[in-house]
């Protein structure tokens, strides 16, 4: 493991993120168990559904906080002056900072997914649903596509951390852009034919087409219905395209962030 990576992980550990992650795991368990109590016909499905939503809400917030700690606060504390002293390579240093955050988030993500699976399994033993959830391969396919969403969100947060003047901007900006990325395709679809919310939904949809160039359609990566209803037919044909788009977007955002950081005047 590179010294930059281990140092970055140490920074997160020292910032007591370990306890935060454990508290978040406990809250996911609580949310999953509680939400099942509100469903009369499909407690395991609702538990899995709400549990996945809780994880997906926590990830961008968590990564934005990591970026605050690893990039913005380092800059504020002027500890970069020491970290980046010759012969350290800036690009190597920066990518390892991002990688430390991404690895920690992914470990949390897969741990949370495993915890949710165990909880939903026990809930599904209680009430025999007409349509049982899938906790085998389909569930892990959902989790895998969720990891692509995390990759894209992590690069958005990292880019914002480089251009941010204050730590709060990273958090607000990451949350805002994540909501835009995850919601715009669903919102445009729901607006079509709905004259109650906007006057001319078709024009509204075409007017917002440019958003697709700013941020990929992260909502399309949410394929949880295949696990919720145990049915592969919910996979859309455009999934591969949107996955590749999201990965390429991540490369663009990360390259841009690294270049900006490399050219930044730190002294």
């Amino acid at each position, binding site marked *: 493991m590179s010294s930059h990576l281990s140092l970055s992980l140490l920074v997160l550990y020292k910032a007591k993120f370990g306890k935060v992650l454990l508290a978040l795991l406990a809250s996911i368990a609580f949310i999953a168990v509680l*939400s099942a109590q*509100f*469903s*009369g*016909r*499909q407690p395991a*499905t*609702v538990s899995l*559904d*709400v549990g*996945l*939503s809780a994880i*997906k*809400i926590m990830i961008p917030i968590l990564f934005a906080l990591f970026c605050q700690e690893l990039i913005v606060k380092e800059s504020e504390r002027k500890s970069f002056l020491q970290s980046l002293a010759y012969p350290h390579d800036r690009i190597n240093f920066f990518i390892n900072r991002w990688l430390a955050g991404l690895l920690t988030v992914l470990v949390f993500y897969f741990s949370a997914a495993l915890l949710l699976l165990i909880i939903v399994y026990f809930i599904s033993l209680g009430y025999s649903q*007409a*349509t049982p959830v899938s906790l085998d391969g389909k569930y892990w396919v959902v989790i895998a596509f969720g990891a692509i969403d995390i990759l894209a969100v992590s690069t958005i947060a990292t880019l914002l951390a480089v251009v941010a003047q204050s730590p709060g901007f990273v958090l607000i900006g990451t949350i805002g852009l*994540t*909501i*835009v*990325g*995850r*919601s715009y395709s*669903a*919102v445009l679809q*729901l*607006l079509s034919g*709905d004259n*109650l*919310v906007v006057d001319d939904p078709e024009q509204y949809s075409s007017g917002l087409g440019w958003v697709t160039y700013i941020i990929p359609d*992260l*909502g399309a990566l*949410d394929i*949880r*219905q295949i696990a*919720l*209803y145990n*049915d592969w*037919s919910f996979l859309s044909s455009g999934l591969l395209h949107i996955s590749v788009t999201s990965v390429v977007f991540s490369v663009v955002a990360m390259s841009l962030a690294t270049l900006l950081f490399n050219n930044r005047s730190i002294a």
Partner: protein
Amino acid sequence: MKVVALKLVLGIAISMYVMLVATSSQQGRESVAAQDRIVVSAPLQVVLAFGDRFLAANFEVIRLAATGMEVNPLTETIDGKYLLRAHQAATRLNPCHEDNYYLANAILAWAGADQEANNILWSAAQCRHWDFLPAFLYGFNQYFFNRNVIEAQRGLDLAAERYEENAQAIRRFSIMIAAEELDDEAMALAYLKDQQKQVSDPALAESLQDRVVRLEGLIQLRDAQKRYEIELEESLNSPQALIDKGYLEAFPNDPLGIGYEFVDGQFKLRRLRIQGVERPQ
């Protein structure tokens, strides 16, 4: 000295503030709760749920399950369409949601909003392309509430395709509908009582009980009409004649407050008048 004065000012300011807040809340304000409950439009709900339409659907259905059965909101509030709008929003967010279509059928269809419940059931039948139940309920409702045999058979045939083990019974049901050989009130009553036994939520069970009583009232009316027509060998022209000739002591009371109607010589469950929605006659 300055600190003492500052503490004094702080104490007086806090007391005044508490007093002002307390008095302002006592003034006569228009009660918002009396208007109707708010249902946020589906696109906005997606944004509020962190861009997650599934979470937004769950929030709406959990709200319905937790608060929807307290009263009969379809009739007892001024607008009275909270349940309807909330179910419709949840359907747009996730038409596959099982609790949503099930609650909509149990609560809306039997409280005078069968057409709206059928729209929700049909959306669920399209999304849940493996599930026979929404298609079956759609077909049943189309026959029982609308006497629409074509739509009823469409729903039942779809249900039969999806439920191989019971396909024969469902198809027989469909044929009986076409031949008008079905004792539909008794079947509907048996179905409602069965639903009532299955639910674990006491609020939902109580709400279904109101619907059972409403249906028993309809059966009472139709029985009286049948006896009247057999014994007197004439068609019933006015419901009042049942009381005048002693076939009924009093008209049955509908606990949902919607009542019954006598149209084309037949007693029916009265439908809810929904503003802006024109029903085919």
